[in-house]
């Protein structure tokens, strides 16, 4: 099912760039073939994956599609609009590679829009290293022999020298060239699509970089109302009053830099600068938000961050995944050193940067043991130390080694560590993890957990328990959503918010805006403290001139998630795979609380029921797919005998 065509759309540029590297040809597809029903970003990626990537395709097959898809709000004044969603068969997924997604900010996604495209879809494989030069509606496939082997910063600089300092460059480093399973695609000094290792997919296609420059802008259908809507949005729409307006840091070593276009600075992303030391003195690299290297000093931490960015490695998986696993192996006596550099038995502030640099060099260049570590921790655990390290996996990788994820739970939303919510609120996190196809920590979970962290009185906020119950009722249709006394009963209390946030996250990463800010669940501005739940649809309507209600948009979110589920079903996913996530949460959280398996199975039953999926197989029913307008999806699943 596809939407009708419209002329010269606003918001969307109307064109998707299709590149076949095997033949060296480019063509343009009409975005509006997909736009009405799948919006952009994550939604359009899922649709193209469904139509063009059958389950037999591996991550490094030329037939795999590498999709970098922006959305109708990308490049506009809509808050945090500078993002896109990457999709394709992801090598990092374990035990088998499969379709997945990642997100990227920085200045590249909006520049792509200004160059005339809503997204780029790359298929095939070039004979020799190439890069793409995309500028104002023109695309050239160029030789990249002189760039192959360069690190990410050197590549960006070389292409800025060739195409002007306004050119924006997304590229891979040595890790992506060597098909490392934790390799990223990066633009600017640190904005990267990390999850899934799409840098390796790019490397497998012999594509070193995509340089873009555009001056064509994004047309807005209703400039006046759109402008006032965007400017009326600020932090008070999401954080409680005590947190106040953001303040710039007075430190000479820190600088608040937006990691996404039009970000009205909600999470106050701080970059390092003026760091003395041995790497690119003064370079703004080393975002202080969310990831970092436990290291002895600011300088050593910075060295590790910059090196990670140069090689093009995943900033979640290296410090929290591979290194943690190696440390557990070292404690068990399975490994003592890397090239004479001792492997620490515990990753903490005493970890010397020499260890980080050695580890990253060996992985990025596939030296010695690094060649195996480069396959990702789960695959390395199968091959190293006679498999004795496999037993440590499930402490780091939720669901490993069985669940079809295989990426580090950089943030599992569980316990009270690093801003995660306490029980029973983390039941919502567990549900979201259970049904996702990857680590949802960075694009689905925060919207719920951040509210729980900062708004209730008992957590230092301003809302009493009864007020939180009221909000829960208005937003999710269940009073128990934010209630600390409500756990497994009634099941809907945790299931409804999990589904609501999952579907809304699909909308947010299709528009594409940032999950740190959307949706606006709570607000300081309103009497009942319910945020502007329809803001996404108002922004979309204002930008595109097509009136879309929030109900329709939420339906699109549901459609996108069901389509991703259908893709999973094509790989054979069933309820049994969903249940593999339970074991991880049966480990005690920091208060000693564990997931109650029996009661949780009841929550899962309710989830399938509300979703309109079959509770036995966990698969979407024919009726549900048809209700969402996806008759062809239902028909193919039927043909494959995978519809309940």
């Amino acid at each position, binding site marked *: 099912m596809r939407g009708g065509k419209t002329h010269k759309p606003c918001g969307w540029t109307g064109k998707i760039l299709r590149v076949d590297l095997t033949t060296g040809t480019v063509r343009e597809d009409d975005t509006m073939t997909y736009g009405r029903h799948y919006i952009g970003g994550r939604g359009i990626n899922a649709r193209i994956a469904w139509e063009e990537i059958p389950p037999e395709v591996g991550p490094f097959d030329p037939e795999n599609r590498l999709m970098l898809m922006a959305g109708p709000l990308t490049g506009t004044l809509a808050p945090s609009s500078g993002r896109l969603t990457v999709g394709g068969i992801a090598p990092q997924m374990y035990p088998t590679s499969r379709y997945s997604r990642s997100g990227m900010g920085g200045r590249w996604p909006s520049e792509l829009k*200004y160059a005339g495209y809503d997204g780029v879809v790359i298929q095939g494989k070039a004979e020799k290293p190439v890069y793409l030069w995309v500028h104002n509606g023109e695309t050239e496939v160029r030789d990249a022999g002189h760039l192959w082997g360069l690190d990410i910063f050197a590549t960006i600089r070389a292409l800025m020298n060739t195409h002007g*300092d306004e050119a924006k460059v997304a590229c891979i480093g040595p890790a992506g060239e060597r098909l490392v399973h934790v390799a990223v695609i990066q633009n600017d000094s640190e904005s990267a699509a990390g999850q899934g290792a799409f840098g390796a997919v790019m490397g497998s296609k012999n594509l070193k970089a995509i340089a873009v420059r555009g001056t064509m*802008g994004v047309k807005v259908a209703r400039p006046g109302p759109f402008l006032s809507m965007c400017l009326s949005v600020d932090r008070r729409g999401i954080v409680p009053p005590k947190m106040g307006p*953001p303040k710039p840091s007075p430190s000479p070593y820190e600088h608040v830099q937006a990691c996404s276009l039009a970000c009205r*600075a909600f999470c106050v992303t701080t970059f390092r600068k003026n760091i003395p030391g041995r790497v*690119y003195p*003064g*370079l703004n690299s080393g975002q202080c938000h969310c990831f970092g290297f436990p290291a002895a000093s600011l300088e050593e931490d910075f060295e590790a961050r910059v090196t990670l960015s140069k090689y093009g490695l995943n900033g979640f998986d290296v410090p929290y995944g591979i290194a943690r696993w190696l440390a557990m192996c070292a404690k068990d006596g399975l490994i003592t050193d890397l090239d004479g550099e001792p492997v620490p038995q515990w990753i903490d502030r005493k970890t010397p940067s020499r260890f980080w640099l050695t580890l990253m060099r060996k992985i990025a260049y596939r030296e010695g043991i690094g060649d195996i570590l480069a396959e990702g921790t789960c695959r390395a655990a199968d091959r190293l130390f006679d498999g004795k390290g496999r037993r440590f996996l499930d402490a780091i990788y939720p669901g490993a080694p069985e669940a079809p994820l295989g990426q580090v739970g950089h943030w599992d939303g569980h316990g009270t560590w690093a801003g995660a919510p306490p029980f029973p609120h983390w039941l919502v996190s567990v549900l979201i993890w259970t049904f996702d196809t990857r680590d949802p920590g960075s694009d689905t979970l925060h919207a719920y957990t951040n509210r729980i962290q900062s708004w209730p009185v008992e957590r230092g906020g301003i809302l009493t328990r009864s007020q939180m119950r009221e909000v829960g009722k208005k937003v999710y249709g269940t009073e128990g959503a934010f209630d600390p006394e409500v756990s497994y009963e009634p099941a809907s209390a945790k299931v409804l918010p999990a589904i609501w946030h999952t579907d809304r996250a699909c909308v947010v990463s299709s528009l594409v805006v940032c999950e740190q800010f959307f949706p606006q669940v709570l607000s300081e501005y309103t009497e009942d403290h319910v945020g502007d739940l329809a803001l996404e649809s108002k922004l979309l309507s204002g930008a595109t001139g097509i009136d879309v209600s929030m109900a329709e948009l939420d339906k699109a979110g549901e459609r996108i998630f069901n389509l991703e589920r259908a893709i999973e079903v094509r790989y054979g996913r069933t309820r049994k795979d969903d249940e593999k996530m339970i074991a991880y949460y049966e480990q005690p959280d920091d208060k000693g609380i564990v997931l109650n398996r029996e009661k949780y199975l009841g929550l899962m039953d309710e989830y399938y029921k509300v979703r309109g999926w079959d509770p036995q197989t966990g698969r979407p029913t024919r009726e549900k797919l048809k209700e969402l307008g996806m008759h062809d999806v239902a028909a193919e699943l039927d043909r494959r005998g995978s519809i309940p």
Partner: protein
Amino acid sequence: MAETRSAALRDLRVREPRSVIVVNRGLCSGCLCCQLACSLFHEGECNPALARLDVFHDPLAGMDNVIEVCKQCLAPSCLHACSVPGAFGVDEATGARVIDEEKCVGCGQCAKACPLNDRGTILRYHPGRKVYVKCDLCREREGGPLCVEACPWGALEVSNT
């Protein structure tokens, strides 16, 4: 020719601007809200390449963002350089140095004359309309310069002279 010269001579005695936009580089987060709001207000589209001010950031240079915005100079080289009668003037209410797009022929003398216009961002060529555009302090807007309002960090301010 004589008429052109006299027009230019008259313009040498330009009124002072009532206000200018001043920049605090250290507060800029590089979000481009100012540029996007500016182009949206003046052009009906979000397009940094048509904004009347510019935020440049070299991601590898380790420097703060560079913000370029018209200083509404006391001795405006752009205005003096314009040889088209009536194409360049001073706005009555705000004192902003402004281009009359009806009369501008797109010759680019103003852009060449401005000593701050290295990157071509203060006096910008509009490829669609084939004229030059520049900051007019949002003279048609009641609340004054929109970019100042759009900045979430207060990196831009209106300074009354």
